[in-house]
């Protein structure tokens, strides 16, 4: 199983065996430095951005109490439903030189071009802001769970020892949540590295734009795959470095059976909490969603038809199937890792989970090549042995698409399941086993109830990701099969943002359903402890 999931990534890495073409010389002489430095800058920026936004949101809603905390705690998840390329389109529409904000400024003050300073939204800074605004929920979600599941005793001890709340945050809560923080930030960073839509639209020459330029422009698929392979090696090295640095640390907690005492925020403290919340949610969701709503409302009669309903259905069912498959595979892998803990297994899981850092189109190629090869092989054998042509069995079906999603989003589900699993002490297994439970029963009666929120979270993350996913869907989908993301992209790439707004809004609305569902279940779970 692990090996199958790792194949597409291995196909990409295997491109390194092929000879390096003269295109490398050209890249090294001209644009490679740009690609690398811009991508590193993006990573640093989005890393800090998501860390600050995500941890503050998690701290406010998990550790503090103030009027309306529950509302904020789900509102913080809203930006997750917003695809990065869509938020980029909308903010460009709003903030660009020809957009309403600058036009109003010019009309009000009688300025012309060059008379005033206005930050350029289409820049690397703009890309960092856009990506941070929609990717921080990964950090928020995982860190919030970690905060909630943290032993209250430790936090109370810290407070009783006279530490101030923020000292508790930095010296106790954050270090204890390190696996969750790392999982969240690394998801955000991998998505940043794989992002093509935003950077391409903003004209930032990042590593992904370079990969596509090399492939589409120079016609060098092999060189493009090699670039991608180097990107993967880099990500792999980062992951390994992080693993190594916390090798000796273990992050098991006692099950928190004591009621968590939240810090009560009153008066202006509560206002500040709200201010922070409104700022984050407003920028990451309310403003762009309102703009989309304005656009969509002007054209909804023409665009809302039967074809649109089938887009809804396709997107929803595809995302649901992929989410289930991903969680099943991730749970299986996480357990194999926990039980066997062999080097080979660890390596294969590591390789497989790299898929998230790979641009979707490249993953698609990594899936396409071996699957089509297999299909053709089966057809050949079936022709020679039974004289029956089978054609392509898997290529061009929903099956290959779901497989590609599993490869691409395994890391999302795996990280979440693993960080949930890491909170279960091995001693719990041991006691359950010593009380006569078989491994299956341990899973069913002990782990599953504890893991429930992690599994749900993993499913939600994949669901929303697949809903937003574009490049893999675009290249691998069957005939006559479209999704909301495909439609949004086609219209937006034709620069018809107003028409693109309706399917974009639909992605966001469908993405919100599981967000609401899951937050409810997470909130309830905590309530049942209390």
């Amino acid at each position, binding site marked *: 199983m692990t090996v199958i999931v790792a194949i597409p990534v291995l196909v990409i890495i295997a491109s390194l065996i092929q000879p390096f073409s003269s*295109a490398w010389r*050209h890249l090294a*002489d*001209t*644009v490679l430095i740009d690609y690398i430095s811009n991508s590193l800058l993006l990573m640093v920026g989005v890393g800090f951005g998501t860390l600050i936004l995500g941890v503050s949101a998690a701290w406010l809603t998990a550790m503090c109490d103030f009027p309306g905390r529950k509302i904020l705690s789900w509102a913080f998840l809203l930006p997750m439903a917003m695809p990065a390329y869509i938020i980029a389109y909308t903010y*460009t529409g709003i903030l*660009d*030189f*020809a957009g309403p904000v600058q*036009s109003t400024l010019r009309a009000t003050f009688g300025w012309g*071009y060059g008379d005033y300073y206005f930050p*350029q939204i*289409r*820049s690397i800074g703009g890309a960092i802001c856009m990506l941070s605004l929609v990717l921080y929920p990964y950090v928020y979600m995982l860190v919030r769970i970690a905060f909630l599941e943290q032993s209250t005793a430790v936090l109370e001890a810290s407070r009783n020892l006279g530490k101030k709340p923020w000292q508790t945050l930095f010296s106790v809560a954050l270090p204890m949540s390190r696996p969750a923080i790392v999982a969240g930030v690394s998801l955000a960073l991998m998505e940043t590295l794989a992002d093509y839509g935003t950077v*391409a639209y*903003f*004209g930032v*020459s990042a590593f992904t*734009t370079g990969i596509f*330029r090399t*492939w*589409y*422009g*120079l*016609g060098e698929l092999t060189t493009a795959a090699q670039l991608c392979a180097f990107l993967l090696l880099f990500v792999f090295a980062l992951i390994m470095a992080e693993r190594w640095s916390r090798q000796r640390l273990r992050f098991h907690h006692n099950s928190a059976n004591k009621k968590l005492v939240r810090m009560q925020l009153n008066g202006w403290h509560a206002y500040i909490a709200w201010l922070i919340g409104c700022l984050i949610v407003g920028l990451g969701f309310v403003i762009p969603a309102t703009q989309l709503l304005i656009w969509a409302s*002007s*054209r909804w009669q023409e665009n809302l038809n039967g074809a649109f309903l089938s887009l809804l259905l396709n997107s929803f069912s595809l995302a649901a*199937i992929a989410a289930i498959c991903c969680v099943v595979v991730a749970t299986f892998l996480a357990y194999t890792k926990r039980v066997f803990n062999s080097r080979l297994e660890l390596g294969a899981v590591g390789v497989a989970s790299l898929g998230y850092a790979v641009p979707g189109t490249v993953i698609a*190629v990594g899936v*396409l*090549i071996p699957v*089509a090869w297999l*299909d*053709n092989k089966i*057809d050949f054998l079936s022709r020679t042995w039974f004289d029956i042509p*089978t*054609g*392509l*069995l*898997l*290529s*061009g*079906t*929903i*099956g290959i698409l*779901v497989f590609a999603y599993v490869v691409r989003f395994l890391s999302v589900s795996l990280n979440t399941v693993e960080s949930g699993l890491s909170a279960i002490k091995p001693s719990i297994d041991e006691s359950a086993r010593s009380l006569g439970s078989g491994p299956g029963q341990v899973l069913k009666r002990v782990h599953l109830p504890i893991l429930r929120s992690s599994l749900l979270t993993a499913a939600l993350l994949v669901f929303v990701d697949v809903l937003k996913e574009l490049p893999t869907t*675009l*290249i691998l*989908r*069957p*005939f*006559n099969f*479209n999704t909301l993301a495909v*439609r949004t992209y*086609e*219209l937006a*790439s*034709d*620069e*018809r943002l107003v028409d693109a707004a309706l399917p974009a809004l639909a992605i966001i609305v469908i993405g919100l359903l599981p967000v609401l569902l899951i937050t409810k279940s997470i909130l309830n779970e905590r309530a049942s402890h209390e």
Partner: protein
Amino acid sequence: MPQRPAPLNTALGTVFALLTFFIAPTFSYGDELNIYSARQESLIKPLLDRFTVLTGTKINLVTGKGDALLTRLRSEGLNSPADVLLTVDAGRLYRAQQAGVLQPISSQGLNEAIPQHLRSPENRWYGLSIRARVIIYASERIDPSELSTYEALSAPAWKGKICIRSSNNIYNQSLVAGIIASQGMEKTEAWLNGFVENFARPPAGGDRDQIKAVAAGQCDVAIVNSYYLGGMINSDDKRQQEAASKVHLFWPNQNDRGAHINISGAGITQSAKNVGSAKRLLAFLANDESQQWYGETNNEFPVRPEVDVSKTLSAWGPFKADQLNVGELGRYNADAIMAMDRAGWK
């Protein structure tokens, strides 16, 4: 007989349901045509539907980016279900021909209807609509007598006045490839260095954004595909209309080789199971009705000069187009990119 526990039944049922859902190869019954299209659905589906009505041939469509579809076609090999590959630029068709996935088409009708420079010399693909890349200028600030050719835009007088999108865009790559084909590499590089120097801002956004920037005064001229201007003129969006009204279209290089053009076009795949219908489709896409449709819905020019064009297009007047075979744009595409990289065109 012991009953199977209910959960197992449900599980098995689900597995079978999923299997049929997952492994459902596209067997073709009756007359069907499978198309891989780099042209997006809304800009081709109405024509294909019309073809189905006329011929009874059912059409199955996958849209995507040209190179991605080409990669899919290549890896699927001779078992690929695709009969026809549709692209929105000649370079991809050239590349598909190089990759050996297109078969020669013997069609007297197509050869007579479509001018020689708009189809493959080996009859592997045919242009179906023309997309012209033109200069747009701010009518308030620029007098058209100041404009002449693409090449002239590298003069220092244009410093800080030109808007154009990123060199990642295929139409810019083709434009430069066309200049390389006519002027040679050395002259092109010299031109690029001056031209890039004149950019008003780092390249970003699409062609409509460049037109908006000219209208808003951020730059004086832009190079864009003409159908984007047509789209803005005919837009329901007041602001787009307003922006479009502030600019004019200029046909470059009318006194030498003509304006740079590209095509959308199609070829029949090596794996095609239904060559007859595929040929009928190509002929249909080249007939008067379809050719006019390109103009009316997407403001593109017909490949057949005798076909009438829409009001928007005729308002721009007749123009001289570059007679270079559009396949050459594909040949020089990689050279164009490398030259743009060296000149620092982001």
